[in-house]
């Protein structure tokens, strides 16, 4: 899995900025995704490309239980969010619907990755390669069950 980085140098990116409340009335995912990250980055939708990764600090996705948050990011093309830590409801929502991969990285890795870097993520080796400077980072492995749900394509497909 390869993609370019959109980096936010901040902790506590909450679900209200990922997808602001007024848009929770939109049921069409494509329409919804036009407002992703609008709370802190109104240009996000115009600069995001299919396959991109978001890199951020601690407690990504804190706040509301809205599944619209991972849905909006995923519909824009975001394949993974790499963060120092995640709020649990966001983490579960991302995995449940197999919308995107919530990947936990350490503080040093977070600081080493820059905006626009190109990364390759290898889930089998739990490794992230920075193709822009050939640095190699480790990621926190997914627990067995999370790995199975992700491979199956979401909670419902896994349990079927």
């Amino acid at each position, binding site marked *: 899995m390869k993609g370019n980085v959109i980096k936010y140098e*901040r*902790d506590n990116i909450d679900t*209200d900025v990922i997808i602001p409340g007024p848009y929770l009335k939109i049921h069409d995912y494509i329409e919804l995704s036009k407002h992703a990250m609008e709370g802190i980055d109104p240009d996000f939708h115009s600069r995001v490309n299919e396959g991109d990764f978001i890199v951020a600090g601690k407690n990504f996705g804190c706040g509301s239980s809205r599944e619209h948050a991972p849905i909006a990011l995923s519909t824009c093309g975001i394949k993974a969010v790499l963060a120092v830590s995640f709020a*649990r409801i966001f983490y579960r929502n991302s995995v449940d619907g197999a919308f995107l991969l919530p990947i936990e990285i350490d503080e040093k890795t977070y600081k080493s990755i820059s905006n626009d870097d190109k990364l390759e993520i290898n889930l089998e080796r739990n490794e992230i390669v920075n193709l822009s400077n050939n640095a190699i980072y480790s990621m926190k492995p997914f627990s067995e069950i999370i790995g199975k749900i992700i491979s199956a394509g979401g909670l*419902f497909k896994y*349990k079927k």
Partner: protein
Amino acid sequence: MSETLFEKIWNSHIVTEKENEPSLIYIDRHLIHEVTSPQAFNGLRIYKRNVRRPDLTIATVDHNIPTTDRSLPILDETSSIQIQTLETNCKDFGIKLFGKNSKNQGIVHVIGPQLGITLPGTTIVCGDSHTSTQGAFGAFAFGIGTSEVEHVLATQTLWLEKPKSFEIMVNGKRKNSFAITSKDIILSIIRQIGTDGGVGHVLEYRGEAIFDLSMEQRMTICNMSIEAGSRAGLIAPDEKTFDYLKNREFTPKNYDELVDDWNENLHTDSNTQFDKSFTINVDQIAPQVSWGTNPSMVCDVTQTIPFPEEFGNGVSNQIKSAEKALAYMDLKPGTPITEIQLDRVFIGSCTNSRIEDLIDAAEIVKGKKVSPNVRAMVVPGSQMVKYEAEKLGIDKIFIDANFEWRESGCSMCLGMNPDILKPGERCASTSNRNFEGRQGVGGRTHLVSPVMAASAAIAGHFVDVREWC
């Protein structure tokens, strides 16, 4: 073997468990609302599934319902569609709905306890993070996403990894129990343990200062457990809990028997070890005011806006967060909190919109007028709260003081209905989140208690409410 209260509830709800895998947990009550349920019902239809226990599923409209005259049509088309969709879904699947014109309509976490749907020892879920409110009754209550809403609708169960336990010991006695509220206690706790301090844990609030609180005050504490990142917040039930739930519309018929059982079982056994522990003393707590853009960025009303270096304590990310927050909030370090001028005041939300909150706020407002620079509104948490307040004449106190007296709903807590801040407007709010744009694009939120919000509305700026009572 000694167990925590949480472990007791957890163990009594396991349907199946395997080593190193999440457990399948039975769900006793499922509350739903218009915003996080439509896709879940779509999923049921696509796979031709039924709702397994419509009798344990209860719906209401709260998030985007207007707080103006209910006899008028809803002007916002998308809101209107979402509300109609819930009505259709409830009809099709046989679910009880407290709709737009029901006397039981209200914020989902306010009506659950009020109707006696929330019971000690139960598991309660809702597609809303503030479901943690109901932990005040000794229930394991937590927010879920829409895929999980669908899972619960279809199976009445949920896969969950067992959270760890976190003891929050709240000791001491508040010096002024009118001016220093449970909102100040929970803001003080989050200020210290941080917005991710509770991640992966269920908080159990214990200690004399907790049991000194009324049920409604306890709900405010548990409500904001999610703002510390925790899965849920819990308080062991006591006589106040049992009295509160007695004779409610849905209180079970064998209530006295249940109370005996709860009395015997629903507490943490003595000498039980928690995974984590934190102690706070409320003797010296002052009224709290948030100055930043997350609920850990809080200070005493007597303090000044902190310098980012001081807040960040040498941690660069924290310093940057504080700088960004102050820029968004348009505040300068060193400014006294009491000099912050306000444009709006919002008394409402699942955190602070219950009858006691309104009674206390009205006590401050009585015989005074809202500052001419401020637009202030009161949004009761439910139709029942509104009715009760009107019976007590509290509505008149607010209206005479130039507050707007509204219909019930989530309103300006999350800006999904027309009640929003304009860009740049500054609001003293009794809600739970001061995130950027939460109350409207560019809006600036300061989280406070109802009495602090009421006094700020009158003065036009924050005041130390202890000096007013």
